[in-house]
């Protein structure tokens, strides 16, 4: 049986851990609020611009030839971009993305496609390297205050590769944020851009027939094709930015709930240890008492 002193020591260390996890939970909550505002703020923009681009692309489908809209398969090479976090202690957040990335890698290998694996976030880099995948590019600068310009740079590089036909597509594995209770790892085909499918309508846009604009009835300035040429790169950038933002928010949510669970567990452990301690103390007292009584008996 553990001595009371040992139990006290353990209880104190669990208490210290609880303090740390509690603090981390609060920090994650604060960061989450901030990130959420940004992610939610950028969502309408992403939605609108994607809607517009895909509708316009669908409307111009027969006369457009933007390189980013065309499918090709010369290089047989696909960029797989996994977005993970730099820090751990956020539950299954990184694990889910890494697992999905692994699945994607296996799938692409089965199709005999070459993979250009790019990973953002230390956790993903270490885990995927450990799993024996060779990482072509790694990024650690997509932190919680990631700017549009940082993401735009990466998007531009990818678009450039795609236009030069050095890659056939870009897939992003990231964590999609739905609500603070729901976020899941998901794959997005960033490139080539899919022209609007009627099924891809969001509930808000359901009122408008967005499955391709009726080009004839529109006025364009400058001509539609020029607008599309400018719109497409912006769409790709905003879409990638939204992925990063979603991941950032999800990371904080995941950390929040993981740390909340840790704090609760520590609290339970403290209670159990306290009970154990009381019992140990009581039995110590009892045995001491018995010793004394035994001594008294012996003296008689």
């Amino acid at each position, binding site marked *: 049986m553990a001595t009371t002193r040992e139990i006290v020591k353990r209880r104190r260390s669990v208490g210290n851990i609880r303090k740390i996890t509690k603090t981390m939970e609060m920090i994650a909550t604060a960061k989450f609020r901030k990130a959420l505002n*940004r992610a939610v703020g*950028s969502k309408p923009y992403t939605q609108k611009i994607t809607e*517009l681009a895909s509708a*316009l692309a669908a409307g111009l489908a027969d006369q457009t030839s933007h390189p980013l809209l065309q499918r090709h398969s010369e290089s047989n090479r696909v960029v797989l971009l996994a977005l993970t976090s730099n820090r751990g202690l956020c539950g299954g957040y990184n694990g889910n993305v890494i697992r999905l990335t692994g699945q994607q890698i296996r799938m692409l290998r089965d199709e005999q496609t070459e993979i250009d694996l790019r990973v953002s976030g230390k956790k993903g880099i270490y885990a995927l390297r450990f799993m024996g995948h060779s990482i072509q590019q790694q990024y650690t600068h997509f932190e919680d205050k990631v700017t549009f310009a940082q993401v735009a740079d990466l998007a531009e590089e990818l678009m450039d590769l795609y236009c030069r036909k050095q890659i056939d597509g870009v897939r992003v594995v990231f964590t999609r944020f739905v609500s603070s209770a729901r976020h899941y790892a998901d794959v997005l085909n960033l490139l080539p851009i899919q022209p609007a499918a009627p099924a891809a309508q969001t509930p808000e846009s359901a009122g408008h027939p967005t499955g391709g604009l*009726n080009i004839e009835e529109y006025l364009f*300035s400058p001509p539609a094709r020029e*607008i599309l040429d400018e*719109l497409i790169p912006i769409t790709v950038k905003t879409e990638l930015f939204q992925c990063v933002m979603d991941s950032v928010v999800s990371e904080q949510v995941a950390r929040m709930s993981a740390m909340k669970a840790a704090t609760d567990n520590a609290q339970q452990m403290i209670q159990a240890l306290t009970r154990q301690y009381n019992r140990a103390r009581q039995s110590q007292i009892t045995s001491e008492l018995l010793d004394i009584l035994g001594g008294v008996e012996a003296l008689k």
Partner: protein
Amino acid sequence: MTDHQKIRCIVITPERQAADAEALAVVLPAHDGLVGVLPNHAPFLCKLGMGLLRYRDIQNREHALFIEGGFGHVRDNEVSILTQTAIAADKITTAEADTQVRQAEALPAATIEEVDTRRHAIRRAKYLRQLTGATES
């Protein structure tokens, strides 16, 4: 006023929704000049330049937003503006604009791209300063 036709004017930037209002008329700074939009305008899609987006709301008050680039989309009496920057014109101060002019002029101009960026920044800052001059006088 209520029987008048209205247009919904929505301004969205990557950071936030800068405006969402019912308007009687909207003037967009298109890439090649100003475009006025009244109710029942034909569907219209244009590239935007740098300039002031003005709209008159249903209380007949003028609003002005400084916007920079992006796209304007008119459909079904709805004007959606997707732009990088949207600042309410009355929120820009002369001092701020002056600082921006100075900052822009201090930019490096070694390469062709840098010269371009610098020229653009100066033009933008001077435009902002001009705006504050116009709104204050």
